[in-house]
């Protein structure tokens, strides 16, 4: 679970994103190394979700570069689908496929992309369902599950691709309070297993406990980044101080 500073997975260089005249990201530069758990916090509308969604090009940047494992994925000539296979993503609203059973949700991508045979994917799905603590839900449809269960399945679905990095876009924001814990617990286990993670969240406890580095984004810029201890114990940026005073 140690951070490997020599192995940069994602290199973000001067990332820009504008929607029309609205400059949401205004030059973000940072490296995400193997084994890191980077937690991104910031006020709503600060661009933190856009930043995360740019990392797998769900949002196409309007400037700057993103190097994933050495390849500039903002280059239109790059086959983005191949790189996305290695970048797992978990959404605020789960986005499970409602017309597929839980197990089919997990098996769909690896089988369709011919990365696994049906049998291999099925075994992998069983293993993942065990890991997220829902082995008895294999044949149910997502609609029958609680929010917390859906999010754990969504995590399993992303893990089925054996990603090198996992992106979490406010994974607990749509959950009832009593279900937040089970999802955070799973994410913590994932971090401890050595998974590289980038997490946009409002859960400051998670940032403090599990994060290896915390980014504060506001106005489309990284205003401050530091280890959780320094970040929460000794914030320097006045906006961060203001932000922390409101959320802590």
């Amino acid at each position, binding site marked *: 679970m140690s951070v490997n500073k020599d192995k940069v997975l994602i290199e973000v260089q001067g990332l820009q994103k504008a929607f029309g005249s609205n400059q949401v990201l205004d030059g973000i530069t940072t490296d995400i190394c193997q084994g890191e758990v980077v937690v991104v916090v910031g006020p709503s509308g600060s661009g933190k979700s856009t930043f995360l969604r740019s990392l797998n090009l*769900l949002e196409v940047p309007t400037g700057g570069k993103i190097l994933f494992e050495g390849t500039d994925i903002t280059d239109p000539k790059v086959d983005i689908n191949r790189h996305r296979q290695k970048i797992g*993503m978990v959404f605020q*609203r789960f986005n499970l496929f409602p*017309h597929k059973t839980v197990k089919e949700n997990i098996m769909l*991508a690896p089988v369709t992309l011919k990365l696994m045979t049906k049998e291999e994917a099925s075994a992998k799905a069983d293993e993942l369902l065990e890991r997220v603590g829902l082995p008895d839900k294999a044949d149910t449809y997502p*609609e029958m599950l609680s929010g917390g269960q859906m999010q754990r399945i969504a995590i399993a679905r*992303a893990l089925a691709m054996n990603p090198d990095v996992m992106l979490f876009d406010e994974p607990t924001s749509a959950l009832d309070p009593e279900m937040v814990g089970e999802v955070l617990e799973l994410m913590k286990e994932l971090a401890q297993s050595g998974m590289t993670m980038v997490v946009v969240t409002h859960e400051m406890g998670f940032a403090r406990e599990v994060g290896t580095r915390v980014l504060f984004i506001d106005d489309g810029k990284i205003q401050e980044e530091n280890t959780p201890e320094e970040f929460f114990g000794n914030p320097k940026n006045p906006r961060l101080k203001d932000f922390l005073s409101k959320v802590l």
Partner: protein
Amino acid sequence: MILADITQDLYLNFIKEDRYLWLLDGLKTTLLITFFAAILGIILGFIVAIIRSTHDKSGHFKILNAVCRVYLTVIRGTPTMIQLLIMNFVIFGSVSLDKVIVGSLAFGINSGAYVAEIVRSGIMSIDPGQTEAGRSLGLNFTQTMKLIIMPQAFKNVLPALVNEFIVLLKETSIIGYIGMMDLTKGAMLIQSRTYNAFLPLIAAALIYLALVMFLTFLMNKIERRLRTNERK
């Protein structure tokens, strides 16, 4: 006495000269045209719907989208009858082509416009998060469409689609205008021989009704099967 009259009428309208065959032959034409037109309509409709909704969401396919919009405007803005007549007397006016093909083309192109808008509304009704989930897993656009969006969209629009095919089936009754004998024309032919409007027209109406009821029955069955993933 009355019973004898009715028997006599039935004999005149359906049995004599094997006149019931006019209805049956007509029915065959009606079904054939409806079938081919529906297939063409589905193909055209899905293609147009995918182009239009992709354009609306991502801005791709600018030129194709413009072509589609012209197609929709023209087809939905003019009567089916006129389209059929133009197809027969203008476009294929100087070529002798099997009328089944002419009719299927006219009705298929017409139906495609309506299917397109139905399917497009289905695609647009699916949460964009579904596309994002599919794409984030590394599926390409076509795989995402085929495996994730279309199955859900299809379920949502099935009743509207079946309704469109019911309309199509009944609308083929104007095909007599280009000289084809369909179910309606068959009934009119009997009427012209027997001077009796009631029996042949009622017979044709009952056959249409039975067909529509059968389609509705089929749809209900499919719908029930598609709903297995919903809370009971």
